[in-house]
């Protein structure tokens, strides 16, 4: 097996504080790679010890490895500053002043799948905190894998994150007791430090011992590594700093169905160690938002609403309380359940002051700005049309109006947390929906709340269960289809996205932009709205070669931080002009 590593370290970017443990981490990774027997030509270190690190450098290094056409496994490791604007960005030396001088991690992953390398593992030791300030929000990043038009089959790409979304990755004083006495503190990158211990085989219980040519070697398998990091990193942090509820670090990962068993490190085991019995360390899984999300999603998909409700009411600690309460709130229906016209919007947590649309009528009912009726649905040339809802703070959102459906929008603290479509009670779809309503709401709420908090994960089995559960009547639940599309893309099962797209097109006569984006089929047909509904789709536009209408080019700079796409006043103005000119319908 030919293995390669691109090891990137950027200690200084923009006006962010200089990181102390970047050089040591990158150098330690390089030494490990060398000790693994990787060809030295295939170990590429790019660090700002040698001058500014640019996106071009990373692209060249990766392109060189891709062009060989012989690499079976590539580890792309980054340590430095990073942040999250709907998806991950690794900041290079020129960021954020140069908006391209960052790695667009999600976009790069999509291209990596088709680069011809057998297995690519992204290892991200940087913060995933929300980007703050207008300058940071403008960062778009670069896709660092080549955008080749032709390749072979899709290959697996996995990720190890040093921390959960929205959280920081930490550099910690190496020896707190000693630091008190010393004038100069030395820091270590907590995640990289623990990661390297596992890679070097220092945790024997994590190794899979196999016999090869008469001797034993230990293989560190990816899923085992990921599980161990989730447990060991928080434990190490606690050991170093004691219990501090404000300082936590919970590693995260995204590992595909076929690569959990892939090995990432290979360590010789001496004969004396073979004789010694390996005492398995008891490793009970800690309760985290990830584990609770997994459980809630899985129970809702299994239709076990009794246990699902019981978990929502259980005290599982402060970390998961937000997820539990958000899930419970999302599951509660709100507002009117029918409109005379069978089509409309209802809003909670925000106030709509006006709407912009063409070809249909829209009425704001009452004075609260939370019930919006769409009229003239029966005369729609198509069963769906875009409507711009403008809020009292000037921000706005485009939501497709679907005949026979009411779209429920949930806002919290100025962010659009969820959009769900339910059939209007007086529509022909209602009776079939009613029989499944409670179950579908629980699935939707579990997924919506987990997505908003960045902890939604679905394995292959869950993906297939979701595909079955979201069906009702002759079609599928439109809002679940949106969430599912991203989950399927994460599972590298775009065939399932294609399948959903087929259902939506035959039932509703439309494809949501996000689903068309993630589908393997041509981006043609009736696609609404003209950009991603979920914010995470924006980072994928270039990798999946999607374009916005001419009148909306550049609108991404007017997006606001929100799980669902939400625009500032300037963005609203652009959309309004596009709708009124007829470019968007």
């Amino acid at each position, binding site marked *: 097996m*030919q293995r390669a590593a691109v090891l990137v370290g950027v200690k200084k970017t923009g006006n962010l504080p200089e990181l102390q443990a970047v050089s040591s981490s990158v150098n330690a990774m390089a030494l490990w790679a060398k000790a693994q027997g990787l060809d030295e030509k295939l170990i590429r270190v790019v660090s700002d010890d040698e001058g500014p690190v640019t996106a071009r450098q990373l692209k060249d290094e990766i392109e060189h490895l*891709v*062009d*060989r*056409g*012989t*690499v*079976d496994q590539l580890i792309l490791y980054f340590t430095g500053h990073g942040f999250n604007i709907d998806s991950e960005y690794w900041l290079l030396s020129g960021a954020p002043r140069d908006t391209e001088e960052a790695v667009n991690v999600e976009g790069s992953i999509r291209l990596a799948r088709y*680069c*011809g*390398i*057998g297995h690519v593992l992204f290892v991200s030791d940087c913060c995933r905190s929300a980007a703050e300030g207008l300058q940071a929000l403008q960062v778009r990043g670069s896709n660092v894998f080549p955008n*080749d*038009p*032709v*390749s*072979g089959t899709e290959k697996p790409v996995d990720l190890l994150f040093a921390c959960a979304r929205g959280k920081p990755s930490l550099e910690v004083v190496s020896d707190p007791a000693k630091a008190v006495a010393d004038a100069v503190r030395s820091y270590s990158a907590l995640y990289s430090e623990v990661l390297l211990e596992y890679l070097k085989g220092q945790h024997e219980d994590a190794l899979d011992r196999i016999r090869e040519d008469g001797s034993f070697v230990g293989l560190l398998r990816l899923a085992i590594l990921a599980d161990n990091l989730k447990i060991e990193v928080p434990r190490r942090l606690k050991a170093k700093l004691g219990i501090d509820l404000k300082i936590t670090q919970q590693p995260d990962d995204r590992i595909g169905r076929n690569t959990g068993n892939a090995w990432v490190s290979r360590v010789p085991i001496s004969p004396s160690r073979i004789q010694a019995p390996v005492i398995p360390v008891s490793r009970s899984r800690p309760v985290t938002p990830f584990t609770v999300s997994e459980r809630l999603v899985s129970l809702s998909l299994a239709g076990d609403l009794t246990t699902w409700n019981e978990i929502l009411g259980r005290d599982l600690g402060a970390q998961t309380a937000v997820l539990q309460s958000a899930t419970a709130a999302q599951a509660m229906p709100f507002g009117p359940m029918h409109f005379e016209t069978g089509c409309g919007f209802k809003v909670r947590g925000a106030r709509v002051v006006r709407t912009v649309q063409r070809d249909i009528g829209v009425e704001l009912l009452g004075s609260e700005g939370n019930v919006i009726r769409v009229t003239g649905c029966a005369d729609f040339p198509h069963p769906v049309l875009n409507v711009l809802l403008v809020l009292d703070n000037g921000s706005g959102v485009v939501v497709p109006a679907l005949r026979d459906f009411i779209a429920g929008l949930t806002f919290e603290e100025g962010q659009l947390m969820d959009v769900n479509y339910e059939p209007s009670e007086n529509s022909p779809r209602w009776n079939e929906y009613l029989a499944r309503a409670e179950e579908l709401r629980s699935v939707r709420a579990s997924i919506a709340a987990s997505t908003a908090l960045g902890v939604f994960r679905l394995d292959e089995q869950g993906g297939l269960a979701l595909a079955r559960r979201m069906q009702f009547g002759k079609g599928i639940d439109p809002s679940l289809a949106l969430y599912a599309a991203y989950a399927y893309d994460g599972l590298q099962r775009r065939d399932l996205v294609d399948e959903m797209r087929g259902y939506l097109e035959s039932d509703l006569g439309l494809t949501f932009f996000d689903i068309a984006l993630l589908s393997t089929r*041509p981006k043609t047909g009736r696609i609404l709205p003209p950009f991603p509904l979920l914010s995470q789709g924006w980072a994928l536009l270039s990798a999946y070669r999607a374009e916005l209408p001419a009148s909306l080019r550049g609108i991404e700079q007017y997006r606001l931080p929100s799980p669902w796409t939400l625009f500032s006043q300037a963005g609203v103005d652009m959309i309004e002009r596009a709708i009124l000119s007829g470019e968007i319908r």
Partner: protein
Amino acid sequence: MIKQLMFVHGRAQEKKDAAALKGEWIAAFREGLSKSELDLSISENMIRFPYYGQTLYDLVSNVPPEKVAQVIVKGENADEQQRAFVRAVIQEVRDKAGITDAEIAAVAEQAVVTKGPLNWEWLHAVLRAIEQTVPGASGASIAVATNDVYQYLFNIGIRDAIEEGIRKAMQPDADTVIVGHSLGTVVAYSLLRREGKSSGWKVPLYVTLGCPLGVSAIKRALAPNRHPECVGDWFNALDVRDIVALYPLDEDTFPITPSIENKIDVNNQTENRHGISGYLNDKEVAKRIYDALI
């Protein structure tokens, strides 16, 4: 251990009788051996010749020969991936041949050049410029060969049809020396890498002649590439003027371990420097095959 020899042919073998074609290959091989005063060391019935020419011929059988290149580069019935593949290979041939934009413009009948992605008229002009610039090169042959490779790589039905004959010809209890030519080198490599070890095949020597595996789009489609585990030595020979093979399979173009032995001084006498007879009648090529069979 029984030893057998297998020839895996490339394109342009359609409408030929398989037995006659095998005879042509053997004759060329014999000619090469005679230069070392040698003759066949195994009986002809131990030389296997799986024939799949008609499978590929049928792909463009309804197109008049003079229109084949145009139809392929235009790609009317092709999807985007296929068009992109054809574009990428033709561009690489053009780059390797050192044909300039001015030379292409001279043969193109376009009064204007668009500033967007390459259009098929331009690609067609590239092929014509190659024909005019590279002795013996045929634009139609390049287009057809590219299309064949694409179909083999991405169309599972065609791949299976082509490979089935090779599978049947392999014998787990025999050492099989395999000699591939052109597309046949891609076919044999792909199959040996994928199924060789699990099927228990033993290939002490794999000989590739006029092999296009170093072409970027082809290499990428098969990546990650590696030395097939069932193969002992891999010997690659080419005439550097061969416009289909383009490159030797060396550290720059196909860096696998163990590396491939390259012979780049073949003087292929066939018109396009790619014909099989011009490779098999090379003294050293024939001798290498001979040595592996004794």
